[in-house]
């Protein structure tokens, strides 16, 4: 292992000398990954958060209990979640083409990434909101709160730390998914690693990509942990 690393490190200066384009293309690919992941995380919460809220509140004995809605949405969510992402990606190519015009490229990747993340986000939100003490909901009901009041003023604010951790988990997941999308031409670090690293045996590109991915994931997790801890410590 150390031999591999020291070998790679020793090769680095020479590599960059003959491949001056590498730092720039890594930077571009990183940026593509970041905005692909950021957009799909954002859009998946636009749909996933309400979906999660509906899953929780339509559950038996909850404020909007509705067995039919709960079961239908629950099974749709489970269905999408049971399809491996790499297959899902190919499965929805016609839809991606319909929305974006092409199934290839960074913008196009946002479609499968978002669609795959929505049910994931919905379950994360559901789990976070389920933790809320029923007593709090009852207290709000006893004051005459509407379902909307309870969602906006009790469930979401009370669950904020775990919701934030959920955003970090989703983002990290999408970083991984985006690399998979990259392999089928989605752009970003995945594409870079695949074309140069795998198809052309440029080990250095592979390793640089891995390091950048590690840094991205670490950064997101630290940010999430930090924010969640700050809120939780205030309330403690």
């Amino acid at each position: 292992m150390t031999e591999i690393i020291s070998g790679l490190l020793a090769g680095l200066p020479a590599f960059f000398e003959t491949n001056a384009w590498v730092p720039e293309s890594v930077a571009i690919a990183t940026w593509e990954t970041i905005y692909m992941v950021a957009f799909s995380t954002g859009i998946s919460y636009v749909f996933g958060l309400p979906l999660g809220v509906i899953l929780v509140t339509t559950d038996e004995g909850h404020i909007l209990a509705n067995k039919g809605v709960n079961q239908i949405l629950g099974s749709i969510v489970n269905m999408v979640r049971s399809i491996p992402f790499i297959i899902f990606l190919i499965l929805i190519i016609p839809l991606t083409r319909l929305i974006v015009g092409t199934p290839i490229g960074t913008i196009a990747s946002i479609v499968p990434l978002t669609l795959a993340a929505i049910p994931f986000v919905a379950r994360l939100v559901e789990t976070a909101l389920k933790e809320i003490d029923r007593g709090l909901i009852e207290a709000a009901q006893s004051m005459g709160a509407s379902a909307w009041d309870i969602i906006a003023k009790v469930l979401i604010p009370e669950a904020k730390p775990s919701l934030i951790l959920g955003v970090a988990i989703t983002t990290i997941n999408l970083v991984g998914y985006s690399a998979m999308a990259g392999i089928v031409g989605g752009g970003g670090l995945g594409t870079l690693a695949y074309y140069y690293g795998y198809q052309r045996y440029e080990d250095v590109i592979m390793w640089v990509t891995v390091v950048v991915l590690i840094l991205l994931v670490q950064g997101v997790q630290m940010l999430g942990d930090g924010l969640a801890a700050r809120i939780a410590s205030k309330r403690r």
Partner: protein
Amino acid sequence: MIEIKDLTKIYHVPGQEILALDNVSLCVKKGEIFGIIGLSGAGKSTLIRCINMLEKPTAGSILIDGQEITTFNNKQLRLARQKIGMIFQHFNLLSSRTVFDNVMFPLEIAKVPRGEAGKRVTGLLELVGLADKTKVYPAQLSGGQKQRVGIARALANHPKLLLCDEATSALDPQTTRSILELLKDINHQLNLTILLITHDMNVIRQICDRVAVIDNSRIVEAGDVLDVFSNPQTPTARSFISTVINREIPAELLHRPETDNNGAATKLIRVSFIGASAGEPVISSLVQKYAVHANILYGNIDRVKDTPFGNLTLELIGESAKLDAGIDYLQSRGLNIEVLKA
């Protein structure tokens, strides 16, 4: 204020039906503190939660200020609930809000303008003695302080009725006392009707005007607290009272011979007296007028709400006929007599 008639609640759980309230009828008057006492599982929580429809009754009627609350639609119910405060055993404060914002919460729901609401919150936090804790989060408060926030929150919308579900059961005796005093003050100052449930007879004794005893889903006894204390009708009521007032009769008293050494008759009685009669010289009259001697075996004086309430266990010694006359005399003086052993 509240009129409950034939209220029945059945919980349906897989495989069985649980009768939690069985034809309960009850009246709570405006401005009084009404207590409901019962053992665990008797149906207290179910009863109080039916009053603001957190639990839907299976049958029966609940009138609040003449309005049948059980037939309200969602919107009517929300408006009605805004005028019924509730406090809880486990406080149920929002951990995401400061003390100030917790009390603000019901005012946001009722859409009270921010400025007016802020003034009210400040006033309430002063009333409950937490003016210096406005910016603190609930997790940093003691149980008693949390319940004070709960009380301030329940009062924010100027309710006409306050429901208390075991409000002091999670608190130590001293804190319980201070919370009860606060409730009594609020009842006085705001002329607020309070309905509370508890399994602690001390709570009933310290602040309630009237009490209902619930046992096995039914109300078995109800009346003025003093009446129930001095003359309990059911075993359940008696056992609750014995938890705060010693009503045990030491075994050796019951096994004493029925005549004393000189052949005079003896009777063991318990005298309970309320308020003013505690000051009358009835015992000495007994000796002078009826030649009946009284041996004090046990006695105590307690307070029921604000009225002195005493208990004396006496051994009366004298001629048989005189003993009966003496007991009649005591009863004519407004004392409650229970013959423990003739």
